[in-house]
C-alpha cells in the first residue's frame, strides 16, 4: 500500500514510471479477479508531468463518469460508447496541473444508478461489448463473491485491492461512502458546491458531488485540497476559501460534541455493524469527545424522498442522450424513431427504470403528489439537521446497514437495493459533508464503515475527527488477501 505522500516521494526519487509499472503489474495480476477497471486507454498518452509540481507522478484512478480529454468516457453505459470528451473535467485539470496523472478509469453502475456496481453495461457477456471491455462485474477484494458496493464500486475496489494509490468517485446518494465502507477504505463526500462538477456527467444535479476514495483520512484531505474550490464553469460551486485540510488534522477531538441519532439504530441494521459503530462511539469518548443521543425524526422518509428527487433529476439529465451529438445511434425512419431506438438500445434496465419513475413523478397530474411533496420533506430534513447541529458538532452512525452482500442477492428486488442507501442519503439531500472510515470487521471478515457528518463547509473538523479516530485504531492498515 502506498499513501499519496509515499507515492509522490517515490516518483520524485525514481521518476513516475517505476511506480506506474509496479501498479500495472498488480493490475495485470489482480484485476481479472477484481474487475475494477475498464480496458480503455487515452488516445494520446498524457505528457510527462512537471517534476517540480507538488504531486508529481501521483497516479489517480477515475470513475468513468468524469471526463478526460481524448479518453473514452462511458458512465459504464452502452449509450455513451465512443464518447471521447474534447475537454478535461475541472478536477482532472487541477490534478494534472499539480503533477498527477490519470492512471485508469473505473467501472461503475451505469450512470451511477445502483449500490452494488452490478448495473454496469459491461457486466454482461454480450459479444458486442466484450471485445473492448471486461465481461465480469466488479468484485469485493475482501470476498470476491460479494459486491464492492456502488455506484463508485470500481473506484473503491481498485484502492482496496491496492491496484491504485487513490481514486475519485461521485456521490449522489452514498455512491462514494457506501462502497468505501463495504470495501474497507476511506470515502469522502464534500459539501455540495465544494468541488466543481464541470465535466462530471450529471445524475442528480442538486445532489451530486465528486470526492476521494483513499487508504487513509490524510490522503482524503490531500486530494480534497487539490480538487476543491470555486470554478466559473460550475455555477453551483461556491466561492469560499479552501483550507489546507491536510495541515489541520492534528488537535484531537477533546470536548467535541458527537451526536448519535436514535433513528439510525432500528431493525434492518445488522447487529454486528451496530456493535462496531457503538464501539467506535466509545472510542471517541476515550479520545475525549462527548457522545450524546440526538434525534433526526424524519430519517425513515430518506429513501422515499431521495428516489423521487433523484429520479426526477436523472430523467431530466438523461434526456440529452438521444443519439445526436455523441455515443451510439440506432437507426430510425424519423427523428423521434431514432431517439426511441437509440435509448432502447443504449440504456440498461436500471436506467430505464429510473427514467420512467422520474418522468412519472414530474408528469402533469402527479407532480404535486410526488415531486412537490418530496421537496417539502427535503425541507424537513434540513430542519432536522439544523436542530441536531445545535446539540452536536458531528453526527455519527453506520455508513451502510449491512456489510458487503453477495453478488446477485439484491438485483431482483430494486427496492431492497435502494434501502441500502438509507444512512448515506441524508447528506446529499441536505448538502452536508460526510465521510466513511473503517471501524472494524464482521464475523465473516468483511469491513464495516463508520459515517461522520458535519455542518456545511466544515470538512476540516470532519477530517480531523476521522483522522484522530483512524490513528487510534488499526483497521485502515488491514489489507485483503486476493
Amino acid at each position, binding site marked *: 500500500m502506498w499513501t499519496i505522500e509515499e507515492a509522490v516521494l517515490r516518483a520524485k526519487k525514481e521518476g513516475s514510471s517505476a511506480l506506474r509499472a509496479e501498479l500495472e503489474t498488480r493490475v495485470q495480476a489482480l484485476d481479472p479477479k477484481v474487475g475494477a477497471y475498464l480496458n480503455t486507454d487515452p488516445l494520446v498518452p498524457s505528457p510527462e508531468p512537471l517534476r517540480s509540481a507538488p504531486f508529481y507522478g501521483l497516479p489517480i484512478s477515475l470513475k468513468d463518469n468524469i471526463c478526460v480529454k481524448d479518453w473514452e468516457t462511458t458512465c459504464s453505459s452502452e449509450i455513451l460508447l465512443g464518447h471521447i470528451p474534447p475537454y478535461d473535467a475541472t478536477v482532472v485539470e487541477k490534478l494534472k496541473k499539480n503533477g498527477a496523472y490519470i492512471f485508469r478509469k473505473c467501472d461503475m453502475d451505469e450512470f451511477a444508478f445502483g449500490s452494488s456496481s452490478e448495473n454496469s453495461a459491461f457486466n454482461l457477456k454480450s459479444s458486442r461489448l466484450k471485445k473492448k471491455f471486461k465481461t465480469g462485474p466488479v468484485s469485493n477484494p475482501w470476498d470476491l463473491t460479494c459486491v464492492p458496493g456502488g455506484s463508485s464500486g470500481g473506484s473503491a475496489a481498485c484502492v482496496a485491492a491496492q491496484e491504485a494509490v487513490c481514486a475519485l468517485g461521485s456521490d449522489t446518494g452514498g455512491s462514494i461512502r457506501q462502497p468505501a465502507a463495504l470495501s474497507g477504505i476511506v470515502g469522502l463526500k464534500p459539501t455540495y458546491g465544494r468541488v466543481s462538477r464541470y465535466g462530471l456527467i450529471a445524475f442528480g444535479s442538486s445532489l451530486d458531488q465528486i470526492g476521494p476514495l483513499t487508504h487513509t483520512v490524510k490522503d482524503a484531505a490531500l486530494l480534497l485540497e487539490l480538487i476543491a474550490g470555486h470554478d466559473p464553469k460550475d455555477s453551483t460551486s461556491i466561492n469560499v476559501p479552501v483550507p489546507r485540510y491536510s495541515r489541520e488534522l492534528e488537535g484531537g477531538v477533546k470536548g467535541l460534541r458527537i451526536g448519535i441519532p436514535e433513528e439510525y439504530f432500528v431493525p434492518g441494521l445488522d447487529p454486528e455493524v451496530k456493535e462496531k459503530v457503538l464501539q467506535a462511539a466509545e472510542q471517541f469518548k476515550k479520545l475525549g469527545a462527548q457522545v450524546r443521543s440526538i434525534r433526526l425524526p424524519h430519517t425513515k422518509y430518506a429513501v422515499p424522498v431521495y428516489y423521487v428527487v433523484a429520479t426526477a433529476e436523472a430523467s431530466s439529465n438523461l*434526456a440529452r442522450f438521444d443519439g445526436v451529438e455523441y455515443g451510439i445511434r440506432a437507426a430510425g425512419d*424519423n*427523428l423521434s424513431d431514432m431517439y426511441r431506438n437509440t435509448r432502447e438500445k443504449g440504456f440498461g434496465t436500471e436506467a430505464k*427504470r429510473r*427514467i420512467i419513475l422520474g418522468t412519472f413523478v414530474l408528469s402533469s397530474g402527479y407532480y404535486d403528489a410526488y415531486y412537490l411533496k418530496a421537496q*417539502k420533506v427535503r425541507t*424537513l430534513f434540513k430542519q432536522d439537521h439544523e436542530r441536531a447541529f445545535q446539540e452536536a458538532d458531528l453526527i455519527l452512525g453506520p455508513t451502510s446497514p449491512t456489510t458487503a452482500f453477495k453478488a446477485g442477492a439484491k438485483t431482483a428486488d430494486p*427496492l431492497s437495493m435502494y434501502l441500502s442507501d438509507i444512512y448515506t442519503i441524508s447528506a446529499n439531500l441536505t448538502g452536508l459533508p460526510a465521510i466513511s472510515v473503517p471501524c472494524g470487521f464482521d464475523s465473516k471478515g468483511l469491513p464495516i464503515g463508520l459515517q461522520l457528518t458535519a455542518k*456545511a463547509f466544515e470538512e476540516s473538523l470532519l477530517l480531523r475527527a476521522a483522522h484522530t479516530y483512524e490513528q487510534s485504531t488499526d483497521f485502515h492498515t488491514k489489507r485483503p488477501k486476493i
Partner: protein
Amino acid sequence: MKIPIQKIAELANIRLTPEEEGTLSKELEKILTHVEEINKLPGLDKVEPTSHPLASENVYREDTVLDQGTAKEVLKHAPDKHGNYFKVPKVIDGNQ
C-alpha cells in the same frame, strides 16, 4: 398507484418491450407504495419545498465571446455529421 406506463415511456422517449412494460410496472408500483409513506406526514401544506440543498444566488458574468475552436473537436465523435453540423434523420414528414 398504477403507472400509465405506455404514456410515460412515450414522454420519456423510451421504447419498452411488452415484457419490460410488465416487469417495470410491477417494480415501480412496489417502489411507489414505499414512496407513498410520505403522505402520512401531517402539515406538509405549510412547508416550503427545497430544490437546492444550500442557499445560493444566481451567478452573473460578462457575456464575452471566446473562440475555443471546439466545433471540429465536438463533431469528431458525432454518430453522424455533415460538414460542421450534426446530421439527423428527417424531422418533418414529406406529406405533412
